[in-house]
């Protein structure tokens, strides 16, 4: 039996419990094993990270990708904002994304003579998250005191678009040029549905609350990501847009770095990567008949991931997120909104959450994303009183623990989950690089 892969370590953060309180990782429990993704899908391409070369491979590939990018409009006396988002820092420990950001800075300075290069780091719903990453990766020092986190409640700027006025974060755009530094990891397929995935941050982590609310409340589940395109295509943004640089990501690691002056060309390439490599993982996970989903990663409940698939997509793995003829996945915010007072969908054709998830074992996951819908509809056991207390104080999760039970430790929680569900199949969402940590019966099924 192959031993489990070392999971991503807990991180000190105001959004999670103290890492010293995470006594046992789920992967350390008896009976756990691992599968490498290459074992499951031998056609997966080689990766540059993780590899023997380490993070220097990211620098080398970023320099290579940027050598084909036209930066001639950036002059030495200009200001440049490199736009980044929290998500990249959650990939493979975060260092590859941090190194790509450092390299972009260095290449711009070298090619253009411009040194007024600032890092702007957008967030999801945890407004200090990227401040934590800036400190962790010493990015403020690297950017000479010019790195800062921005949030959707910060001062805004009105942006005139083809669909009327939308709003961006003023500090995102307070430069002559913006550089879109992101990654191709598909992450929230339930939201963007792989339509303009590369453009999404313009409607999300770079955007104000009005725009994000338009996305999640006003347009509908398959038109939502148009907010991003509308903002990106606006004359205001086009006048400032210099180029994009992306880590290209597959479920087993970083494939390389892609950069382009034309975001839509880059978007087409990353869409193909997303469909090709993540589609098969999601299809495979959709074939799991029953399991305990164990959350064990320094991220909010929805974003913990296994083989590149986030928990929010696993609970909807009974539906094909890539199929646009299906309006609503089993989980997306529009779906959640359409559950009536009796706890059932308002329409009979709205799919229910993946019935294969018999229980959620919440070993270690963060606050800072509304997650009560999950504990309300999936039996949930949370490890440790400290974690329960943290959720009870989070304004986004005040009722999460109303529907969950608490276990003293991970061992007891797993024992409870196995007895109650009657299944020995355990899928661990701990970000294991290059593979999946899971129980042997589930490994046998997936093989």
């Amino acid at each position, binding site marked *: 039996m192959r031993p489990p892969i070392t999971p991503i370590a807990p991180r000190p953060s105001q959004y999670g419990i103290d890492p010293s309180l995470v006594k046992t990782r789920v992967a350390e429990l008896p009976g756990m094993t691992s599968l490498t993704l290459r074992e499951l899908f031998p056609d997966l391409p080689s990766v540059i990270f993780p590899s023997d070369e380490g993070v220097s491979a990211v620098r080398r590939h970023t320099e290579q990708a940027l050598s084909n990018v036209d930066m001639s409009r950036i002059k030495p006396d200009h200001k440049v904002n490199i736009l980044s988002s929290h998500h990249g820092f959650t990939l493979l420990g975060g260092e590859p994304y941090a190194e790509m950001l450092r390299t972009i800075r260095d290449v711009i300075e070298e090619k253009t003579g411009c040194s007024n290069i600032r890092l702007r780091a957008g967030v999801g*719903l945890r*407004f*200090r998250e990227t401040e934590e990453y800036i400190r962790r990766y010493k990015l403020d020092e690297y950017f000479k005191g010019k790195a800062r986190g921005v*949030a*959707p*409640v*910060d*001062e*805004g700027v*009105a942006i005139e678009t*083809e*669909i*009327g*006025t*939308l*709003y961006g974060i003023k500090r995102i755009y307070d430069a002559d040029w913006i550089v879109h530094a992101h990654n191709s990891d598909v992450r929230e397929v339930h939201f963007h*549905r*792989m*339509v*303009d995935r590369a453009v999404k941050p313009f409607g999300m982590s770079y955007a*104000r*609350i*009005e*725009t*994000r*609310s*338009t996305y*999640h*409340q*006003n*347009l*509908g*589940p*398959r*038109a939502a990501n*148009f907010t991003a*395109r509308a903002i990106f295509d606006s004359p205001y943004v086009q006048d400032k847009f210099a180029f994009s640089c992306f880590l290209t990501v597959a479920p087993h690691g970083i494939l390389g770095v892609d950069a382009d002056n034309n975001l839509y060309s880059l978007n087409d390439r990353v869409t193909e990567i997303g469909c090709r490599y993540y589609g098969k993982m999601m299809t495979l996970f959709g074939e799991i008949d029953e399991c305990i989903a164990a959350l064990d990663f320094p991220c909010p409940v929805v974003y913990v991931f296994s083989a590149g698939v986030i928990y929010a997509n696993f609970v909807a793995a009974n539906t094909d997120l890539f199929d*646009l003829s299906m*309006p*609503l996945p089993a989980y997306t*915010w529009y779906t*959640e*909104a*359409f559950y*009536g*007072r*009796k706890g*059932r969908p*308002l*329409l009979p054709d709205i799919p229910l959450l993946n019935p294969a998830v018999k229980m959620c074992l919440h070993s270690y996951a963060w606050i800072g*994303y*509304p997650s*009560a819908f999950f504990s309300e509809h999936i039996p949930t056991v949370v490890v440790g009183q400290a974690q329960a207390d943290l959720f*009870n*104080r989070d*304004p*986004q*999760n*005040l*009722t999460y623990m109303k529907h969950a039970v608490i276990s003293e430790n991970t061992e007891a929680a797993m024992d409870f989950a196995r007895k109650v569900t009657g299944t020995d199949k355990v899928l661990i969402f701990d970000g294991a690089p290059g593979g999946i940590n899971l129980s042997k019966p589930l490994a046998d099924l997936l093989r």
Partner: protein
Amino acid sequence: MKLITVMPVVDLEKCKGCKTCVKVCPVVAIGMQDKTAVIDVERCRGCGDCEQRCPEYAITMALRDEPVLAKVDMEGLDYDEIAKLCRAAKFHPEQVLCYCTATRADEVAAAIMQGAKSPDDISYMTGMRTGCKVECIEPILRLLEAAGIEPKPTPGGWQWYGRTITAWEIPEAVKEKYGARGFYFDEDIELLNRIVNAPLQGKE
């Protein structure tokens, strides 16, 4: 409905009087006195926006001695009128509008019928928009507009700027131009219309 369990505490030594907390507070519960922030704890809904955006890290969230319940009682109101207002704003009355507090459209409509005139009134009365503070501003503005109310943003504040487009208002030219890119505008409108007109499930 929201049970408020926490409240902000300002460290007067650290506060530099920058007013960021004043500008972001969704219920407009923060003012300035002697160049430091003063919080109206009774009005505060415990969202933590001030704590999360203070550049000086001068605000912490502390547990309240007694939790406070923000909830609009629909007793005595005509539910048909509540439902009518929700549907005029193109929401199902039981549709969840705030994913953090699970506030439904009917509670917001009831707040408006009980006198709410602005997003901060609605947040104060229902607790909505005091969780993540991000995703539910537009439904509030849509419901106020459907009730014939035109709120004005707080001068100098960053709480909200304006109502934006809905699915029903997307220009035909935009639909034609981008429909082939995978944006299902008309199909989503059809879904949203079915939701708006779906039967009520009834009270809890």
